[in-house]
């Protein structure tokens, strides 16, 4: 993720983002974002809006910075000593990087689902109840029960686990574990869900379930998804952003990006060409 390839000629080819990076009334807006790992620059002057209740897919080759950029949204990069983020990140009007912004509260509002399902070694119930307890979202057991059940329902997992809520979360199948992680994320009522390759470790059936879920979650949440699967990006997202060597090359309506991209680098990537 931290690898940055030097290629001055390609940097020349990406002078500015092609397409429409800005939206009306964005949920999250980012402006002139640079990210450095020590003195290596990983993200170059990226400006992009995330619209409310949209699924936006970030695609690009390995090392292009899409995960680095995604992790900036809820300040996951704060934990990396060498990482320095400059530029503007706003969640509606609030500055995400303001001094007064508590990262723990921020991460409740901007949740994250990772590539490998990472349930806590606790019961299914406790996995989902952990966040609401931490943030004091339930004042009694009945309220907590309701949050757990409704989160599992929204994640499309409840029917499969309702009889064994006290069983360990790690005993579930990979696809179920991932949906458990999604349930855990939505239990604290986030506004935005970040997904870093949420289905890349899953089989096609579990993948299809997750994709179906993403589409349903869009009703209530804004979703930013990083994916290596172009077909997945084409299926689940409304907008697609293509990153290359730390730059945002092109952003546009997903249908347009996959049928008629405007930048040669985007074209080369999604058609599997050298370039």
């Amino acid at each position, binding site marked *: 993720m931290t690898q940055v390839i030097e290629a001055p000629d390609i940097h020349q080819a990406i002078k500015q983002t092609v397409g429409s990076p800005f939206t009306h009334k964005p949920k999250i807006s980012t402006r002139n974002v640079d990210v450095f790992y020590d003195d290596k620059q990983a993200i170059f002057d990226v400006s992009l809006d995330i619209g409310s209740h949209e699924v936006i897919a970030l695609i690009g080759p390995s090392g292009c910075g899409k995960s680095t950029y995604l992790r900036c949204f809820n300040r996951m990069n704060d934990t990396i000593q060498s990482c320095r983020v400059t530029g503007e990140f706003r969640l509606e009007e609030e500055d995400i990087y303001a001094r007064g912004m508590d990262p723990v509260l921020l991460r409740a509002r901007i949740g994250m689902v990772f590539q490998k399902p990472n349930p806590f070694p606790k019961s299914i119930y406790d996995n989902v109840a952990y966040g609401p307890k931490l943030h004091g979202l339930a004042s009694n057991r009945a309220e907590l029960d309701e949050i757990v059940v409704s989160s599992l329902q929204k994640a499309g997992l409840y029917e499969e686990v309702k009889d064994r809520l006290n069983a360990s979360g790690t005993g579930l199948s990979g696809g179920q574990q991932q949906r458990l992680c999604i349930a855990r994320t939505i239990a604290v009522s986030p506004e935005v869900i970040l997904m870093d390759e949420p289905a890349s470790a899953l089989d096609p059936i579990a993948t299809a379930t997750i994709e179906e879920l993403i589409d349903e979650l869009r009703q209530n949440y804004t979703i930013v998804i990083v994916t290596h699967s172009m*077909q997945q990006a084409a299926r689940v997202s409304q907008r697609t952003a293509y990153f290359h060597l730390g730059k945002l090359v092109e952003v546009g309506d997903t249908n347009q990006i*996959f049928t*008629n991209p405007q*930048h040669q680098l985007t074209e080369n990537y999604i058609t599997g*060409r050298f*370039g």
Partner: protein
Amino acid sequence: MDTDLNLTQHISNRFNEELEEVRNLALNMGGLVEKQVSDGLKALLKAKSKLGEKVASSDYKVNAMEVDIDEQCTLILARRQPAASDLRLVMSIIKTITDLERIGDEAEQLGMYAIKLADDNIKPSQFVELRHLGEHVKEMLHDALDAFARMDVEAALQTIEASSTLKEEYDAISRQLILQMMEDPRQIKNALRVHWCARSLERIGDHCENICEYVVYLVKGRDVRHVSIDEMKAELEE
């Protein structure tokens, strides 16, 4: 910025080959159809009923090619899930071969009427006006296939523009044949046959226009069907 339609630069060599192969098959089919049209016209205008029979009985080759190319395209879609220009290429091939197959059908008609007219001893000098229309259509088909082979939007637009004279010629032939029929009702049968031939030629022109529209879609990613040539140009200039 326009993106390059380079078929041979995929990471997967096999994919390069598959696309190249299906494109070549479509071009071969175009060549075969062009020959069919040319032979059909020759049979008609030179009263060669043998050649007419050959054209009428060769249409199965065109049909078989259509089926084969369709199958290749289906396999590419299933195996490769092409995107962007690759997807547009496969889509335009699928659509182009449908029009080519129909052009083949019209050529078959020309062959059949060539037989009937020759059998009735109708001299080609009696329908010399078809020659002019026929030459135009042949030229248009050639240009359309050329634009497709070279993925040349300019040539495609010029070919679409040329189709308006074709329609004028067809209308003129229609009027002339109506006059003939009114003057001498005994000629109605053969005048109708000639009219069907003119109609077939005019239809071929329409199919050529479609093929040119797919070329624009393939190269520019813009769907320019069902719009006037001026609107087309305006849209492409955007």
